[in-house]
């Protein structure tokens, strides 16, 4: 809301200190977005164009001799409307115009120019009227040498308030005046409008056929003379951000700004009946609005009709057919209340937000409809020679009832933690101009309709803000509670710490993705969830997997010459029945490298597998199995990928990106992994983990190497060994895998077997026997031979 300070000052017997006003608003009411001079140009003067001749070398330029009071200046002017004997606005050499442009003495095609004759646009404001004529011409009464800004009543400041949704009362100068008076503890001068009415009867009758309009006053006025508004009125509209049009339209806007009650003026002679009927629009009904657009209406829009067809879109925009124009003689002035929700829906559907609709949307005080209308009548009589014809026709279904809110001092103090006295509260309620009765420690407050309130909480807010938030003491809740992270939250932190410790960098990517990316890497058969109103196709679906986002991060960084990319993310994936927290990992390049020592090693599947296994060990996830997937994993290399299962349940996958995928992004050797964190957290049994006794007996280690066919896996060998030697075999470690042409389709696998007993020292012979048995079974199970 933009507020003219001249206008606001009219309510007080003194001019308000601007700096204090800004401070008070910021700390007690609404944030001040700015307080600026309406026209921030110094040194302008009124000039009298004494004489004028065409520039010899330029047809469109005039050489003017201008009397500026204390001197006569030769000024070149390019405006087509400049003429001799005009009173004009002159910027002399040295004046800084809007846009920080300092005027200099100039020679234009050989002729000296000592200043500039200005348009209003050159002063940084909108023009006062519609026509783009060029320079702005002042009235004949303007005196050369004097300040044109004062003459035009533009010597004003604009207070720009950022309003919150609960303070629609501040959408009017009166509302701002009420709050100002309260905050600054000033008297408020509220004058009632004075209207002189002709005794003849108002010819219009008003009806409604919808509950969505509770109040409608219609007043006819005759003998209207359409002309420009006076300067003071125009400049106040400009200060509040509304462009002046003509006296009738300006007055409706002026009253709307003052009262917050939008008004509308129809050209009464263009209405084809004496009956105004307010109703809901019919489906597909149309109206030509003031902006010349043909609007298609829907049921639910509210329209003002002449009994047959719509003549205005209620609260949103008038109809072109009944528009005020220069020849208008009789007008019908409307002051009404419409359902805020309906107005909002219509305005947003038609993209027709206006000063009027935005006020109706937020709720207009229904008890000043008539007063606003009367004030407009007073102004029209004075500035448009209008004759007010009789009393307004109307309907009004609003029952007068002031809301009563009870607030006890005890409640106030127990909510705020401050000790307000009766005197403080009384003083503030008086300043708010709320009527109240005090009984015991209870304030029974009558809430005026201009300040809609719901409960005592609203009243507490009023008292606290006016008394000052800075007075509230600083304490801490005394109720003892036990805080902390739950197991899941702790585990998530542990996972992040684990990866960071391993050299991985955490990413944060968007949940919304394109349809294609949302289901990439996805093994589920459900569809990705779609957003009804997406911003772009790229952000239309909720992702099933985080990996496409991590691949984007890879491509982004790789194209910026970052070679080693080890990243992870913890985030949700979204499915029709639930949201799953996932952990995604991507590895590419080298981890722990040392260039000059030539010990760098590119990451491979086993890095990823090891990383994952160590994490599972840290999280105490029991009995996990990393195995070949029974079906091909989407977008992964079928020979270099695996699934992770725990207790028979698949909870994730890992592997190398499919060569086709790698080709597509132009990056080779990319390893990825994705797990369901929900499952992982459920399975981890950290809390039930029991300590195992450390044996005091020595272990015996034996190395063996076996030759097996190429398709025998390490897992096959290990399970055969495990099956054979259960009791005393403590660990198996594969320390070499060797392929060679000479081995003809076979490979050699070398293992260290460690034997240990928890209750005795093992004998060599016993271990030898075990080794024999193991080899025997390896031969039987896998046709493995001892390599000598």
């Amino acid at each position, binding site marked *: 809301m933009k507020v003219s300070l001249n206008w606001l000052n009219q309510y007080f017997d003194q001019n308000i200190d601007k700096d204090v006003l800004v401070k008070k608003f910021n*700390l007690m*009411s609404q*944030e001040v977005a700015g307080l600026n001079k309406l026209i921030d140009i110094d040194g302008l003067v009124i000039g009298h164009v004494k004489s004028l001749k065409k520039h010899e070398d330029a047809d469109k330029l005039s050489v003017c001799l201008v009397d500026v009071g204390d001197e006569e200046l030769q000024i070149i002017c390019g405006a087509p409307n400049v003429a001799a004997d005009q009173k004009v606005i002159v910027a002399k050499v040295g004046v800084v115009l809007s846009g920080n442009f300092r005027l200099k003495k100039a020679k234009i095609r050989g002729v000296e120019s000592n200043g500039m004759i200005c348009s209003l646009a050159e002063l940084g404001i909108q023009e006062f009227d519609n026509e783009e004529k060029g320079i702005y011409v002042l009235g004949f009464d303007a005196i050369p040498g004097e300040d044109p800004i004062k003459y035009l009543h533009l010597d004003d400041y604009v207070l720009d308030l950022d309003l*919150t*949704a609960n303070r629609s009362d501040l959408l009017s100068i009166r509302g701002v005046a009420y709050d100002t008076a309260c905050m600054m503890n000033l008297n408020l001068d509220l004058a009632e409008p004075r209207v002189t009415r002709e005794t003849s009867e108002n010819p219009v009758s008003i009806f409604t056929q919808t509950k969505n309009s509770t109040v409608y006053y219609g007043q006819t006025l005759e003998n209207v003379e359409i002309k420009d508004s006076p300067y003071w009125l125009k400049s106040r509209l400009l200060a509040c951000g509304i462009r002046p049009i003509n006296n009738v339209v300006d007055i409706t806007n002026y009253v709307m700004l003052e009262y917050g009650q939008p008004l509308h003026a129809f050209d009464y002679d263009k209405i084809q009946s004496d009956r105004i009927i307010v109703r809901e629009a019919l489906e597909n009904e149309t109206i030509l609005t003031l902006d010349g657009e043909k609007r298609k209406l829907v049921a639910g829009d509210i329209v003002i009709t002449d009994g047959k067809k719509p003549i205005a879109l209620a609260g949103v925009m008038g109809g072109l057919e009944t528009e005020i124009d220069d020849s208008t003689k009789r007008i019908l002035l409307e002051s009404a209340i419409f359902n*805020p929700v309906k107005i*909002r829906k219509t305005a947003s559907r038609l993209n027709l937000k206006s000063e009027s609709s935005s006020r109706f*949307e*937020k709720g207009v005080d229904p008890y000043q409809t008539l007063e606003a209308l009367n004030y407009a009548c007073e102004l029209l009589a004075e500035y448009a020679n209008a004759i007010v014809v009789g009393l307004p026709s109307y309907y009004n279904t609003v029952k007068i009832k002031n809301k009563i809110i009870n607030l006890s001092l005890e409640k106030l103090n*127990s*909510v705020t*933690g401050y000790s307000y006295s009766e005197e403080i509260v009384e003083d503030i309620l008086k300043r708010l101009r709320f009527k109240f009765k005090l009984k015991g420690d209870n304030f029974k407050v009558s809430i005026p309709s201009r300040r809609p309130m*719901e*409960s005592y*909480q*609203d009243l*507490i*807010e009023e008292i*606290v803000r006016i008394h000052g*938030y*800075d007075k*509230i003491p600083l*304490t*801490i*809740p005394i*109720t003892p*509670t036990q*805080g*902390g*992270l*739950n197991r899941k*939250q702790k585990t998530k*932190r542990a996972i992040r710490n684990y*990866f960071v410790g391993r*050299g*991985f*960098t*955490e990413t*944060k*990517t*968007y*949940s*919304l993705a394109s349809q294609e990316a949302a289901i990439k890497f996805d093994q589920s058969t459900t569809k990705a*969830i*779609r*957003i009804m*109103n997406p*911003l772009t196709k790229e*952000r239309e679906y*909720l992702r099933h997997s985080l990996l496409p986002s991590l691949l984007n*991060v890879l491509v*982004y*960084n790789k194209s910026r010459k970052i070679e080693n990319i*080890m990243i992870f993310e913890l*985030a949700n994936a979204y499915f029709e029945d639930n*949201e799953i927290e996932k952990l995604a990992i991507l590895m590419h390049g080298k*981890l722990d490298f*040392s*260039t*000059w020592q030539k010990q760098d090693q590119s990451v491979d599947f086993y890095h990823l597998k090891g990383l994952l296994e160590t994490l599972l060990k840290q999280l105490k996830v029991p009995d996990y199995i990393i195995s070949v997937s029974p079906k091909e994993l989407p977008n992964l290399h079928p020979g270099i990928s695996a699934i992770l299962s725990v207790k028979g349940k698949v909870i994730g996958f890992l592997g190398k990106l499919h060569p086709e995928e790698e080709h597509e992004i132009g990056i080779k050797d990319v390893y990825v992994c994705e797990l369901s964190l929900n499952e992982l957290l459920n399975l981890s049994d950290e809390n039930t983990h029991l300590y195992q006794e450390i044996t005091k007996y020595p272990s015996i280690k034996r190395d063996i190497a076996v030759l097996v066919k190429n398709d025998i896996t390490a897992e096959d060998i290990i399970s055969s060994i495990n099956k054979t030697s259960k009791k005393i075999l403590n660990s198996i470690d594969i320390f070499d895998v060797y392929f060679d042409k000479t081995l003809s389709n076979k490979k050699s696998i070398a293992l260290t077997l460690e034997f240990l007993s928890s209750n005795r020292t093992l004998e060599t012979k016993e271990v030898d026997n075990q080794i024999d048995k193991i080899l025997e079974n390896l031969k039987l199970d896998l046709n493995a031979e001892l390599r000598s």
Partner: protein
Amino acid sequence: MEQKLKKITSLATEAIKNCKTINELLDIKAMYLGKKSEFNDLMQDLKNLSSDQKPLFGKIINEAKQEISALIDEQKQIIDSQKINDLLKSQTIDISLPGKNLALGHKHILTKTIEEIEDVFVGLGYEIKEGPEIETDLYNFEMLNLPKDHPAREMQDSFYITEDLLLRTHTSPVQVRSLLENAAQKPLKIICPGVVYRKDDDDLTHSHQFMQIEALVVDEKATLADLKGTLLLVAKKLFGENREIRLRPSYFPFTEPSVEVDVSCFKCNGSGCPMCKNTGWIEILGAGMVNNNVLKAAGYDPMKFQGFALGMGIERVAMLKHGIEDIRLLYTNDLRFNSQF
């Protein structure tokens, strides 16, 4: 004989002192003290002496032998330590070459900021609560005093999935869920961090996806003063011990009264700078006393219970603290950015 002994001793001393290796030293030892050494010859010569001279010369020879033996031991030590010194010298490396590049990982700055804020509140006895990002209209709006036609819904343009399902626009629905969960209506002190969404085009200061953290206290006596004290404590923990706070009236449908909270500028200490737009204050969060309608919707009797809530954008806190001017940097994952934290 004495002459001979002197000569041998002096020769031996000379040889030992010039000796450089252990092997040489052993040879010298054999030569002078071994069975076929000249000392041995001298010992043989003793037999030819008279019995009164024997002890005298025997003593002299033994003394000479001991002298030589000591010299050998001494030289051995010299040779040994020389050997160790040579070895150490040969093993000396260029310690100025770069150390091995053990990869260093980084938590995301948003994670770090959340954990920092969580730790402050956990220290004050708050529990951490989380909830789904796909929410119902009921939890995201209606139970938070934002009925269907409430104008404030426009403040939060939302991504809808169905008429009744949307991506949550704030973490407040977690508060609703926590209130409902707390069937025994015990005092509740929680914080709710999480991802939220608004239908905004991404630019310098807007992101369609961002993170929030909210705190909620509901009991029989939590006051506005408690809120203010809590806010000051949090501001000090996050932005430094010397911070002050300022409350200004604001509006949120779920709190009444509602306030915006400013913290004194941590760059200029309140004297005014570009960071605080010369006001000395920086807006960091919104807060207020829980609106009775929210308590009622969750089954709490507002005549018995009251409380406060506060909420802040994690991005804003992180950006303010680290001087980040473009919110999109937080979601671009340029590793040159992510690895700075």
